[in-house]
């Protein structure tokens, strides 16, 4: 099915097609809030027959682009908790270095299967409801020592919250980092899971802090990818520009969109791609 093997594509055609695919990924990612990065690797490997090393290189770059572009907006709203984010970033960054190292030691088929499983989890996670974490009255010793408790803006003023489960959050963030460095994804889903469920942060704080962290984690992996030669300019160029443009367009359209329906459709697409990745890995 891979374009470029069956049909001879010249550079311009290949660039244009990849760019369009990336645009669609970025657009849907922004509209559904699921992030386009997770679709880039399957898109490149399955549709274009690109080797997974080049694919994760291009994908990780696009993750930095979209998260940095989006974070600019989030940060100004005052929701993200920079202390929590920066402390956990130690875990994710180390994780990313470990993940990038694993790429050298795991067979491509194994990476494909892991990717498929993570994709399935992302599809599942996006469909489930996010229960509102209740505010905790008891202070947590570690969180207090690290001064993580903070406030976030609500309609009627600043609402304070406490942070808990720091070691658990740290462990989950390490896993998120490993996945990011291994698969070329942002691992936003795992990061939000860690902060929302393990550390009991208010949901909006979790999502915005996660967004800030994604770019830093991706940069840690990308630095290694760059020196290993995974990042090809001819491929990363249409991917980065396409995803950026797509997500900008998606953000514009966001106001009038039926997010729930789109999310269901996108989850379905992700699930299909996940199965295809696993199938390819098992072959």
């Amino acid at each position, binding site marked *: 099915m891979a374009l470029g093997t069956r049909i001879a594509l010249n550079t311009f055609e290949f660039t244009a097609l990849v760019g369009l695919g990336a645009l669609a990924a970025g657009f849907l990612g922004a509209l559904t809030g699921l992030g386009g990065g997770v679709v880039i690797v399957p898109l490149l490997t399955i549709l274009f027959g690109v080797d997974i090393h080049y694919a994760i290189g291009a994908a990780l770059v696009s993750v930095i682009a979209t998260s940095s572009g989006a974070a600019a907006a989030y940060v100004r709203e*005052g929701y993200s908790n920079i*202390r929590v984010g920066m402390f956990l970033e130690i875990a994710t960054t180390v994780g990313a270095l470990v993940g990038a190292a694993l790429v050298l030691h795991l067979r491509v088929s194994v990476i494909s299967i892991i990717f498929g499983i993570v994709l399935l989890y992302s599809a599942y996670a996006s469909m489930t409801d996010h229960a509102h974490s209740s505010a905790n009255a008891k202070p947590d010793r570690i969180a207090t020592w690290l001064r993580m408790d903070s406030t976030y803006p609500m309609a009627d003023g600043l609402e304070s919250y406490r942070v808990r489960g720091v070691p658990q959050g740290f462990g989950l963030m390490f896993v998120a980092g490993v996945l990011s460095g291994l698969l070329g994804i942002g691992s936003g889903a795992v990061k939000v899971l860690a902060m929302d469920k393990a550390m009991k942060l208010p949901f909006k704080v979790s999502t915005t802090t996660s967004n800030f962290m994604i*770019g830093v984690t991706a*940069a*840690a992996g990308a630095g*290694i990818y760059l020196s290993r030669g995974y990042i*090809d300019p*001819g491929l990363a160029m249409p991917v980065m520009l396409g995803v950026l443009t797509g997500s900008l367009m998606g953000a514009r359209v966001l106001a009038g969109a039926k997010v729930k329906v789109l999310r269901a459709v996108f989850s379905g697409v992700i699930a299909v791609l996940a199965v295809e990745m696993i199938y390819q890995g098992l072959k």
Partner: protein
Amino acid sequence: MNEQTDRRMDEIIGRLLQAGVILAAVFVLAGGVVYLARHSTPVTNYHVFQGEPAELRTVPGILHEALALRGRGLIQLGLLILIATPIARVAFSVLAFLYERDWTYVAVTLVVLGLLFYSLLGRHG
């Protein structure tokens, strides 16, 4: 600790990130135009992994290629700027925590910064 300074720092960080992405995109786009104008057949066979040539894998190499106005070098420079953007963001946070005299988090942020520098500038084969 001070809400006001926190918010001000956040604003600067936001603008820093935006500027980084825009600057990176400009180089990637410019490089892309040069690249497409000069190559009609694909330079790299994406089906088989061979790895990029050495000059596109290191910071000095990329700068050299970009200054020579080679399309791939310019693109790679843009990507380098993109990777450096979150790093700059973390570096700025070191300064922000220093300004707030938050020594614990100066240390935390320096650890993260160190790991990022190791990734970008270290030899990883």
